[in-house]
């Protein structure tokens, strides 16, 4: 394993630990660390999606406040910290920028497991890293297509027309996600 992925994985585990310290002990120092890393990225994400600096600052603060309030709902066997924060930021973006609603799927009945399985947590965090690496390794043109889909509201038919979209790259990730879900449902 290269030093970069090692460092990256350590970072991911740290973020997961920070969120559980917020949940269990309202730990403001853990929150400050998450804030320093993610708030400027969320702000950038919102500005690239069309928000001006003032609105993006306001929304990024709201997204981080939501992270604190919903820390008990974060399940590290289903999402990395970055993925979970993305979903919060996306919902805020739809609300604030597009003035739309985005109905959510029904929650799964997750049984009576209060603590997610550590092996599942590690596997998911590792897959998230690998996905990040796979995206970083894509040719510029393909990466730009994905960025356009996530930042600039490509319509679904525009996405469907993008023949260069490297969906094959994430197919193996999708397969893993599916296997894990089936495992979790047993």
């Amino acid at each position: 394993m290269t030093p970069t992925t090692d460092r990256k994985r350590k970072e991911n585990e740290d973020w997961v630990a920070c969120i559980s310290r917020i949940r269990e002990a309202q730990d403001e120092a853990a929150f400050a660390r998450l804030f320093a890393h993610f708030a400027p990225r969320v702000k950038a994400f919102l500005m690239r999606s069309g928000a001006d600096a003032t609105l993006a600052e306001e929304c990024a603060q709201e997204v981080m406040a939501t992270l604190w309030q919903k820390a008990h709902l974060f399940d590290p066997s289903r999402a990395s910290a970055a993925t979970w924060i993305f979903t919060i930021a996306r919902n805020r973006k739809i609300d604030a920028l597009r003035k739309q609603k985005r109905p959510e799927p029904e929650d799964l009945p997750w049984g009576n497991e209060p603590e997610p399985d550590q092996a599942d947590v590690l596997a998911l965090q590792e897959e998230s890293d690998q996905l990040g690496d796979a995206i970083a390794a894509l040719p510029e043109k393909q990466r730009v297509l994905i960025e356009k889909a996530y930042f600039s509201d490509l319509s679904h038919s525009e996405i469907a027309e993008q023949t260069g979209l490297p969906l094959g790259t994430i197919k193996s990730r999708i397969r893993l996600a599916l296997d894990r879900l089936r495992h979790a449902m047993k």
Partner: protein
Amino acid sequence: MTDIEIKHHLTDALLMAYSAGSLPEAFSLTVATHISMCDDCRARLGAFDAMGGAMVERCDSVAMSAGSLEATMRRIRAAGPLAAPAPRAKSSLPQPLHDYIGGDLDAVKWRSVGMGVKQAILPTSRAATARLLYIPAGAAVPDHGHRGTELTLVLQGAFVDEVDHFGPGDIEIANEDLNHTPVADIGADCICLAATDAPLRFRALIPRLAQPFLRI
């Protein structure tokens, strides 16, 4: 809702657009309802959300304003603890659809559109239209084509058209190239959730005249 076998799933393009948050509300409702019934598509959506997470990680950061952490802590203290979510209503329908109807199927305010077919338009933004369709066993929805995209999700019963047989949980994704005449299975009445982003094009004259009044 994992005991039904679903053959027809969401496309990658729809899942990606739903994950990115760029679908019109009526489409999001249909996608969310299908995912509530389909573990495969739920897992695939997880991968697209992970891609969104990777995009946020990759963003160059933009500095937050001075004092923003303190301002956020003030927001958190002012907001207090999160209210517990409302208990889930018992429903034969997936939760997102139940929420838009405001109840179960018996709460739907059907309007007849002729030949025994009934519809109910659900309240969404105007960029696209979501409707429930009720097709009596053996009856047909008039032959129509599409200018944009039409998603048809079977909730109950089944229908057959030129493409295939669609049962509960199956979703048909039709575009401009498809003219079809969905016919409900003879065995049972069929109830579908359909979303369209452009008016349908009926090939027969009468439905075309009625179109502005029916909003179909």
